[in-house]
């Protein structure tokens, strides 16, 4: 067996299992920790796909910044556990699983029906070149310069918005 296949199986099963564990735990903090595990597995998968820059950003931004924010708010609010909600909402759970299974079957059918790997021949050298910071930065600062600036502005607006919303009183 190829090393890449073994790595893919390990990382994919970690990602899948941690996502399922995340939505089934009653304690929200444990959910957050499993979401971090899921993000790390995804970063590994990005490395396997030769996307080095995105893998590093995934760890720094998602697993680092966003999840720290989530855990901070979770521990700040000290929310009650969801015991009573897990016990008596069987119908909602059943329909939720039904709906998501339906969506999954549809998407899986489309993926296998379209079967993109039949027409798409992967080129290892081009794939490695596409994932480097150089290639992404070149795109960001030439063709996508306006969206890049808008993204910066969006982050500024989000910072101010978060400050205003989290303040004690609106003025």
């Amino acid at each position: 067996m190829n090393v890449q296949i073994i790595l893919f199986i390990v990382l994919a099963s970690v990602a899948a299992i941690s996502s399922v564990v995340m939505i089934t735990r009653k304690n929200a903090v444990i959910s957050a920790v499993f979401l971090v595990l899921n993000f790390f597995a995804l970063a590994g998968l990005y490395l396997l796909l030769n996307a080095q820059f995105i893998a590093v950003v995934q760890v720094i931004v998602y697993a680092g910044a966003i999840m720290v924010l989530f855990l901070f708010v979770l521990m700040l609010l000290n929310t009650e556990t969801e015991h009573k909600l897990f016990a008596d909402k069987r119908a909602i759970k059943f329909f939720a699983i039904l709906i998501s299974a339906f969506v999954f079957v549809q998407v899986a059918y489309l993926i296998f029906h379209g079967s993109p790997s039949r027409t798409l021949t992967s080129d290892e050298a081009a794939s490695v070149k596409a994932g480097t910071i150089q290639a992404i930065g070149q795109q960001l600062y030439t063709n996508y310069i306006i969206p890049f600036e808008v993204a910066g502005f969006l982050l500024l607006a989000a910072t101010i918005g978060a400050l205003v919303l989290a303040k004690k009183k609106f003025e």
Partner: protein
Amino acid sequence: MSSIPMECYLILSAFMFCVGVAGVLTRRNAIVVFMCIELMLNSANLTLVTFSSYLGNSIGQVFVFFVMTVAAAEAAVGLAIIIAIFRNKKTVNIDEINIFKW
């Protein structure tokens, strides 16, 4: 990379998206609902990176960069809204936050 067919990544991504959908529908803690939305955004990112890598084209990864930016902004504003709601209603249970319901 070439030894793994593309469908494996796409199926994993679809599975994670559906787990996120189930989480949004079943969980009643607003913060956990937010985390499920992050999971769905990440599964979409995995699809984008897969296609970008197999096509040898970096534009898909540029899009992932923008998705991460929007996710960070959304998490900051969303958590601020949850804090504001918690300050007023002393709960983050989305069944009890129904002031817009009529």
